[in-house]
């Protein structure tokens, strides 16, 4: 018995030593130079190899992130902390993308929108829309069964008492799941900084909308006309906002006669040009209503009669010579 024990011990020991030596030799012969940052990035990552980022594992993600194929923010597990460390590691290469948030483009809840039927089937928007039946008269409206509550992996959507889903900005990660799920395509992804939202998706003519929904877009085009940067466009009886162009001045929300447009930002109440003005004329050129006058290299003036308080001059002034007072609605 002793000999078997000894032989087993020896033979396995020799075999393992032989293989280890062979591998050690091979690892030196076949050594491949690697970007040292890949290893560092790999150490920053959670190391769960969950694949949520779309790569096979953390190491693949680390390689991709170092090569710049994917943004540092795309590790959903690591969140902000990992993104920050990765950005630090990669220096100037890293750029935090503007955070996006899902927005619901419908405001017509149970109170605002008229009903023409009572649906008693499966409690699901997808099921209800599959049989082409809507409780509400507006065929573009939110069905209000709250499929998204289940769809949202981050619990960022809850239904309010009015039967409309509410997106919680701090939890939303712009994963696009609700956008894909909504059978009426009512969700869009917009930048987190966006403060203006035209919350209607109805392409019905204004007359029809007026009858069935208190807050639907009636296509009066007032917002289009008031927008100083042409960010709103009429598409088939519906005002559509281009988030890239919008400067969040809130003028459209103020004008909207049916209160379709939500504005969460700060409205400018008072705006004036101070003594710091160097007379570069930039504000006068940009002003959409030609309310700014003044000679070059002299202090400019704002004509209060004409001024619409859009705040463009405040944004373009190179020397911060425009003062504004704001109030939150």
């Amino acid at each position, binding site marked *: 018995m002793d000999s*078997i024990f000894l*032989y*087993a011990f020896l*033979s*396995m020991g020799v*075999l*393992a030593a032989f*293989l*280890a030596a*062979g*591998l050690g030799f*091979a*690892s030196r012969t*076949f*050594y*491949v130079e690697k970007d040292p940052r890949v290893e560092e990035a790999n150490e920053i990552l959670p190391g769960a190899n969950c694949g949520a980022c779309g790569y*096979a*594992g953390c190491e*693949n993600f680390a390689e991709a992130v170092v090569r710049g194929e994917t943004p540092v923010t795309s590790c959903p597990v690591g969140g902000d902390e990992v993104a920050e460390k990765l950005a630090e590691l990669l220096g100037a290469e890293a750029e935090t993308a503007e955070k996006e948030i899902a927005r619901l483009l419908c405001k017509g809840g149970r109170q605002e929108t008229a009903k023409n039927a009572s649906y008693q089937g499966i409690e699901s928007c997808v099921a209800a829309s599959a049989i082409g039946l809507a409780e509400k008269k507006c065929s573009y409206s939110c069905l209000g069964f709250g499929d998204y509550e289940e769809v949202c992996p981050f619990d960022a959507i809850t239904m309010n008492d009015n039967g409309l889903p509410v997106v919680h900005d701090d939890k939303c990660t712009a994963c696009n799941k609700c956008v894909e799920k909504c059978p009426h395509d009512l969700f869009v992804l917009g930048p987190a900084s966006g403060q203006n939202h035209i919350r209607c998706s109805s392409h019905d003519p204004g007359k029809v909308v007026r009858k069935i929904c208190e807050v639907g877009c009636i296509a009066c085009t007032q917002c289009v006309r008031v927008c100083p940067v042409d960010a709103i466009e009429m598409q088939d009886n519906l005002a559509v906002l281009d988030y890239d162009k919008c400067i969040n001045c809130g003028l459209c929300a103020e004008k909207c006669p049916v209160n379709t447009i939500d504005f969460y930002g700060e409205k400018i109440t008072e705006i004036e040009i101070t003594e710091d003005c160097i007379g570069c004329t930039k504000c006068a050129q940009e002003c959409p209503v030609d309310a700014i006058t003044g000679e070059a290299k002299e202090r400019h003036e704002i004509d209060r009669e004409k001024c619409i308080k859009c705040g463009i001059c405040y944004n373009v002034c190179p020397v911060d010579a425009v003062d504004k007072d704001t109030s939150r609605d």
Partner: protein
Amino acid sequence: MDSLQYLLLLFISTVLINNFVLIQFLGICPFLGVSRYVETAFSMGLAATFVMTMTAFATYFINTFILEALNLEFLRYMSFIIVIASLVQFVEMFIKKVSPVLYKALGIYLPLITTNCAIMGMALLIPMNDYNFIESIIFGFGAGVGFTLAIVLIAGLREEAQYGDVPRDLKGMPITLILAGLMALAFMGFAGLAVV
């Protein structure tokens, strides 16, 4: 000549009649995992064939001259596993150096050859069938060729199925499993070929 004919029969029997994947159901993980594209499937098959042949070679010697000579057959599993693991490591380093593209294409499945039961199964079948040295090599090589054949065939079918009119609920893995089942049925037809 008899022995040559026998070796040829052994080879055919390992590739077709006792195909490791479709008849013995070994190595299903890479069979389903890396069979999305014919090209990567073929590379995976090549890597597996190489590892299998080398494993047959190495394990034959270890089994005959160490384990059987010293009455240590109970150490088969352990010694075979470390041999296979080392070989896979070696192949991985080699491929990484020689072809980074292939290395990336194989991805996580290359290290997974280590735990590929087809290779372990083959290594254990050699002493069970009492193969001699030449037979072991042929058996190992044949097992690899059979694996490659199966994985390339299903990769071809999956590429077709991707563009085919597959019912929505069967898209992806379900249709792949159905295809694999049909292929296994088809391979059973080879059972009438020979009596090795």
